[in-house]
């Protein structure tokens, strides 16, 4: 039986993919290789994981203000996550998504979940995100 989590769409959009989940915030600069779509921050629990095409769930972005530019490169290179889930609206993810929309008409869907719902996500789950922020978890 699939279950549904009801999130708040920050940048609405449809996406589906395997979940990649961590409770640790992530900086994309020094943390994400846009040429391969891999997480490269060796201190991060997701180090070495492929995030391209997956639904990335991290609480928020950490550190460098270059995160947005890296994410825009990933959108152009086709190595961005299919969507991103956070525990609070994250302005860096929002900006990257808005600029990806302005430049390439390819916004990255962003959804905020409550901390309780976020805790139900696990790496490897098949997620299906709807425009209204609903996430089907299989």
């Amino acid at each position, binding site marked *: 039986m699939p279950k549904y989590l009801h999130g708040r769409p920050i940048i609405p959009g449809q996406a589906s993919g395997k979940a990649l989940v961590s409770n640790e915030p992530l900086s994309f600069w020094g943390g994400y290789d846009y040429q391969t779509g891999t997480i490269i921050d060796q201190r991060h629990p997701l180090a070495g994981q492929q995030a391209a095409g997956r639904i990335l769930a991290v609480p928020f972005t950490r*550190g460098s*203000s270059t995160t947005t530019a890296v994410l*825009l*490169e990933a959108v152009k290179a086709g190595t961005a996550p299919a969507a991103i889930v956070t525990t609070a*609206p994250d302005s860096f993810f929002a*900006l990257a998504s808005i600029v990806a929309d*302005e430049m390439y008409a390819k916004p990255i869907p962003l959804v905020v979940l409550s901390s309780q719902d976020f805790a139900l996500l696990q790496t490897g789950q098949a997620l299906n995100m709807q425009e209204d922020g609903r996430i089907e978890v299989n």
Partner: protein
Amino acid sequence: MTTATVQLSKHDREKLAGGYGPAAKMAMSIILRMAEFHGAKELLDITQAHIDSSIYMGEAGLEFAERLAGLGAKVTVPTTLNVSSVDEHHWREWAVPPDWAKNAHRQMVAYEKMGCRPTWTCAPYQVNLIPKFGQQIAWGESNAIAFANSVIGARTERYPDLLDICAAIAGRVPAVGLHLIENRAGQVLMNLVDIPLALQQDDSFYPVLGHLMGQVARDRIPVISGLQAQPTEDQFKAMGAAGASSGTVALFHVVEKTPEAPTLEAAFQGGQPEETVPVTMETLRVARRELTTATGKKLDMVVLGSPHFSLTEFKQLAPLLVSKQVHPEVKFLVTSSRAMTLLAQKAGILESLKAFGGHITVDTCILASPMLPPEIKRLMTNSAKYAYYAPGLLNTQITFGSLTDCVQSAIKGRVVRDESLWEQQATMGKSDSSAQNPL
């Protein structure tokens, strides 16, 4: 998305309608969408900007810059530029691919064309156009944001790449976050407990404290209390850069040391900390150990200057190099701004660095430019920011040490560190003689 409407001025609406040209329209549209994202009631004027989008990373960022410049974008407030991704004078001495140098140069040209000043530094607060207390600014570059907010008391949100230039073109930003005084109160208290004064007076204390601050604070505003020493500008710089790397620190207060924290009460604007965390020698030692990922004593390169080296730091370095030579198997690099490098040259310090066998890189750094040849695997630095990012960005191992440790290691060709300050237990602050390098 919030449905609240953002109150716009007549000028804002004209910009959105294209009355100031297509670039102003694009910039204003992005600013407005971000204002809606934040649920801002209105926009506010900025009087200065610092642009981090100048870093070249790939085609998309270059395309963005050239599109804006091509549409005739002009900044409407005095605007400084963060690092570029190529040192145009020295890149051929390193492993920078010519194509990269060409593209990074194109990106520099695009931002200069928009009217930004070619400062090319991550420490703009030490060069020129230094903002004043209370001034509303839009700054990119995490360490610069932390310094401007915390040490100067200017007011900026964390402006990410791509948004900073939009703010500079529009001259307007969403009235949210750290622009508003009520959002600048401390949230988490970090209380120094029994930290020897001699350690507090040492340069290597501040990157470690900053690293710990970022971990504890995460995205909250930390307040440091119990600091007896008066940090220098460069010590604050190192602390903020560290906290903005290990955490999302855009503003920190140090009781009695930073402008919005004359007292503990003022730092919290009369409120209570949501958490209190003691900072002990033990937690500091753990934080210091985390800044080192290397095992063993092997060393390929020493790198100093993140954030960019200041004239004061050049002056601290110079006497350590006198009549010494860097080990033949070790590279020694200082990264700095053109402005500071010029001052260092006038002071004769560049000559000393050259005689020592060291290199200088301006406008950029090892994190923003692919300078390092693949055989460089083991770095040493006194910068927590380099220590934090080098392992992931450069696939290297790194050792954190003091400035003196770094120079001594470069001479000996292997990692040497003076542990005496970090092994102290006493609270009374041993005399400075205990800090002497025993080597």
